[in-house]
């Protein structure tokens, strides 16, 4: 997994490349925890380039969602491929996350 971080105005975009699974979800979790250590953080996760995501990755995203709420921050997702969206649907998570089709729309939704 490779995470590219870029700032767009008040929004921090994390573009994730590769797989998010049981062996590396902890790395993403640590990254998100460090970012949300700053109160009011607005974060967009671009999932366009992920190879796959397993339940360990979903656990990390759910924790990030709670952390965002606890720190006055926000979290949005973008770039879900049809397979990734299918798993969000299977898990019943589509309504829990703010999901935008493109990075621009994601950034705008948080700006």
């Amino acid at each position, binding site marked *: 997994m490779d995470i590219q971080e870029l700032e767009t105005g008040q929004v921090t975009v994390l573009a994730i490349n590769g*797989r998010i*699974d*049981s*062996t590396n979800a902890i790395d993403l979790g640590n990254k998100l925890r460090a970012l949300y250590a700053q109160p009011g953080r607005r974060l967009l996760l671009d999932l366009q380039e992920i*190879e*796959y*995501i*397993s*339940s*360990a990755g*979903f*656990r990390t995203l*759910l924790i990030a*969602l709670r952390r965002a709420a606890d720190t006055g921050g926000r979290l949005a997702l973008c770039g879900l491929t049809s*397979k990734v969206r299918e*798993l969000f649907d*299977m*898990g*019943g*998570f589509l309504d*829990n996350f703010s999901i935008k089709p493109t990075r621009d729309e994601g950034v705008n939704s948080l700006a």
Partner: protein
Amino acid sequence: MQIGMVTFQTTVDSKSGDLEGVRGMVSALERARSLTPEVVFDINVVLDELISNIIKYGYSDDAAHEICVKLSATDTAVEIGIEDDGKAFDPFASPEPDLSLSLAERPVGGLGLHFVRKLMDDIKYKRENNRNYMFLKKNLTPQAQG
């Protein structure tokens, strides 16, 4: 064209939890059978869920154990076989998660097995000679092959 069955096999060290060998095996099968990215996605998720489950819950000692993983494909299906010497545990005997509960009320632990049930077409478990055996099958639609 009928190519017959292609089979790959590898082992995972329960201590290191390194899944590189498993990923290499999935890639090899993908190339050998021209599997679609969708099928490869499903196989990767299922292997991650089941193997990480064994590593997390399967052993009560601190020793290194071998988890044997076998992957094969015919023209019509991909089959996964996983064998371990951990505690007796049928992962598919656990109840389905209640997705109607709110996020705060919902235990996230059963999510991985829920994915496995949904992504696979056939799932079997048996306990024999103090070992767990799982057999899973994913049917390939005609479009899912090259």
